[in-house]
């Protein structure tokens, strides 16, 4: 138990260090890009037909955002504010707080991506296991492999365009874009929930179909490689049913790497799916990240990356914590003593 706690502590230190280093890099790198974040804001003002007071305004905001101070001073105050949970104001959509921007986009991203990630993972793993186990015996199962390969290699945005064309324009089964119908007010009603679901179908499908291929293929190859293992042979020799060997022996062992993959994928979901969001005008986080990077909106870049780093680091930490519990072969790096 002590060893396990020690192992946990080690992992936790790594988690904190990872986050800290990432935060530091994320603070400095965008600032090394030539250009002025306020310049980008005022380039946008140009679409208002020019602004006579722009230079004075730029000066004012340079002061408000502390951009007139040295990099080191900015870094220290950034860390201080971060410790208080304050990510600051967005530069390009001042006076919105970074947390406001994240809060608006995050639910859509998490809603769409966790559901699609888990669905495609579960479906892909199950079908992959069955096909891997009995693939050679059934023509139908064999045919699934090239289908999965095609799906996996199609870029998901191309698939998305096809889906929009077929389902939204040609057959008009689903809406073209957006997260819910224009004119509808978000509320906790069945109508609204159904509307959101209807809007989520195509974006979700474009992601599920593609990632399904990957989970399917990896599970299939895992199962296939396990077939020759001694313990499978022993199970067969004991006369266990095929089904029991598959789910009780092969599948359980194959799940370990799949679980790792799932955790990492889930960690990445907070990064959003930029192109899906673009094609479906879906209000997620990918767009926010893209927009803040091109606009040099430092505080928003920091906020988004922090979120991603946190999620991925946490997901990894969670795997580390859970792994020794589900797989006794992992002995906290202290084989023989634990």
């Amino acid at each position, binding site marked *: 138990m002590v060893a396990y706690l020690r192992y946990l502590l080690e992992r936790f230190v790594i988690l904190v260090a990872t986050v800290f280093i990432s935060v530091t890099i994320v603070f400095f790198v965008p600032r090394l*890009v030539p250009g002025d974040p306020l*310049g980008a804001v005022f*380039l946008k*003002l140009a679409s208002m037909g*020019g602004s*006579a007071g722009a230079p004075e305004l730029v000066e004012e905001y340079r002061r408000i955002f502390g951009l007139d101070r040295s990099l080191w001073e900015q870094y220290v105050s950034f860390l201080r504010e971060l410790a208080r949970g304050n990510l600051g104001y967005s530069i390009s959509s001042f006076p919105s707080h970074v947390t406001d921007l994240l809060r608006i986009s995050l639910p859509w991203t998490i809603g769409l991506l966790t559901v699609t990630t888990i669905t495609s993972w579960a479906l892909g793993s199950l079908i992959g296991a069955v096909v891997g186990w009995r693939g050679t015996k059934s023509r139908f199962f064999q045919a699934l492999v090239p289908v999965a390969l095609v799906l996996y290699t199609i870029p998901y945005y191309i698939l998305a365009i096809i889906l929009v064309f077929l389902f939204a324009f040609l057959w008009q089964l689903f809406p073209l874009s957006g*997260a819910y119908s224009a004119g*509808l007010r978000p509320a906790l009603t069945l109508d609204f929930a159904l509307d959101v679901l209807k809007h989520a179908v195509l974006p979700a499908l474009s992601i599920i179909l593609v990632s399904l291929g990957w989970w399917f293929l990896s599970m299939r190859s895992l199962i296939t490689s396990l077939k020759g293992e001694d313990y499978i042979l022993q199970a067969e020799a004991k006369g266990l049913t095929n089904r029991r060997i598959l789910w009780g022996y092969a599948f359980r062992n194959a799940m370990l790497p799949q679980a790792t993959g799932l955790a990492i994928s889930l960690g990445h979901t907070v990064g959003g799916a930029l192109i899906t969001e673009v094609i479906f005008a879906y*209000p997620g986080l990918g767009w*926010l990240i893209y927009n803040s990077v091109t606009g040099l909106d430092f505080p928003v870049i920091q906020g988004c990356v922090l979120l991603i780093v946190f999620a991925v680091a946490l997901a990894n930490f969670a795997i580390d914590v859970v792994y020794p519990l589900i797989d006794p072969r992992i002995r906290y790096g202290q084989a023989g003593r634990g």
Partner: protein
Amino acid sequence: MVTSKNRMMVIALVAVITVVLSACAPTTVTVTVEVPVKETVEVPVEVEKEVEVVVTPTPVPPGAEQLARAETLNLALSGRIADPTNLNIYAPGVSRSGTGIHQVIYEYFFYQNLQTGEYIPWIAESYEYNDDFTTITVKLRDGVEWSDGEPFTPEDVVFTYDTLLANPGMTWAAEVSKWVESVEKVDDLTVKFNLKQASPRYHLNREAFPGVGIWGGITILPKHIWEGQDPLTFKSSNPIGTGAYTLANASATVMTYERNDNWWGTKVFGVTPAPKTINFQYLGPETNVALALAANEIDSPFIGILSLGSFKELVRRNPNVGAWHKEAPYAWLDPCPRPLMVQNATPPWDKAEARWALSYLIDRQAIVNLAYEGTTVPSWGIWPFYGGNEPYFDAIQDLRDQYPTDVYDPAKAAELFESIGYTKGADGYWASASGERLKVRYLVESSSTEEMKVSAVLADQLEAGGIEVEVQPMTGGVLSDAILRGEYEIKLHSFCPGYIFDNLDLFNGKYYVPLGEPAPWYERNSFRYNNPAFDAIVDEMGKTPPTEVDKVKDQFHRAMEIWFKDLPVIPMVQAPALVPFNTTYWEGWPSADNPWNMPVSWWATFTTVVNGYPSPETGEWVGGIRPTGQ
């Protein structure tokens, strides 16, 4: 150079579209899919493929949904809304005002109809300057109310200006501070603006006065809402204006406005706006907007979304979709023409001969045909070809004949280059006496399809003319910084606001800063032109009331004599605004056949398109969009 990734995408797209094409042989609707490839591309690649599709009409009797659609005006935004809860119109950043906030929530004293030259009183009735143009007294309209029922009063005007004068971080606060000393209430319907300097043109300065021409202007705030708030951090999530609509819902992709049936205008003008609901929505890329227009889900998109290819196909298949002109160039002319800025501070471009030579190397008609697909026309100057500007154009006809700024004449260019000591080498490039090859850095906004297309054609023309062109696509802060610091030889740019005086004033030496320091604004002399003789005339013009037309014409003539000779920037083309509209549910849209207004849904003036407006001449009601009864 097309990156391999982009090329792959294009190839994949062609493949996909071909597959879809073969799957849908029978036809009724054609959709053109255009994929402009951006980023590191120097030559924009477009994939154009016709896809024939059957749309099965749904023979359902009009249900509640269709009735609601018939009362709804749907406009397509060109971008997502970063934070829909942040609707503070005075915080920097533009996405929020054009999303309906300045069109249907807030209203302005006066609106300019650039198409007809009218100055339309709206929530104000009239204005009057004193004799030396140091004060302007504005009579407010009786009966104007905020959407929450509070009266609109001079106190609101005074409060707004006091706030702007006290907070330099508010958008346009600096411009207000430059012109306005104070604003005071005279009586319950009158306010007086005390100006810092004599200005007979103050009522046209939308950045300091609530008189809107292009885009938007100074917005009067409701004192009872904004008092006690920090005007910079107040998010104004539920904006209260005097407009005919109130905000019903704001999200990252849709802003929904509902008609206010207690609108003051209904009581005062006796007019009720036709749309019950207005949606400003972001639908995603061009293809989505084209599909939505084809399916009559959208009534009009913002500028810059649809390319000519998509538009032509839409028109062919959906007879209800149209634009300003029925035929080419289809587009309305945007008020900000596109000249080529030339860096006047960098040799040899500091010489007028070099700039004129550059001008002679440009075949503008080819740029119109190739880069703009014929949607615009070449331009000899830096003003939009509007009826209101014609008298001034006529006043300088002699100079226009003398200085052919829109002529392509490589022989003349060669002559001019030789006159300043350049010789053409065996490699076909011009070189200075010291053997240095003539070379230009050409900055291009990489996220603008228009600029990318022009750069492809223009760079070829200049190379053919013996100038080595280094195209530098950039975007965002990096681009902004490079332009302001003058780190370019040439850059295509829009010159706003397009008024005779204001566009001349962009060249004023008072905006000159040395190379390397940031200029006040892009077209406000980042090209570093400095000619005191020219400045004197422009300053004189700024002090002349715009009503003294003959005097202004004379000043304009004198200024242009210098301008043409120096040619600080090179006129290129008029700016096309291809704005489709759909007459399935709404009619009465302004067009070349009936040019009663500007076909612009992203400016504050859009309220006069939706509602119509009282003619300042006769008082009669003009225009307004009407339901078709579908």
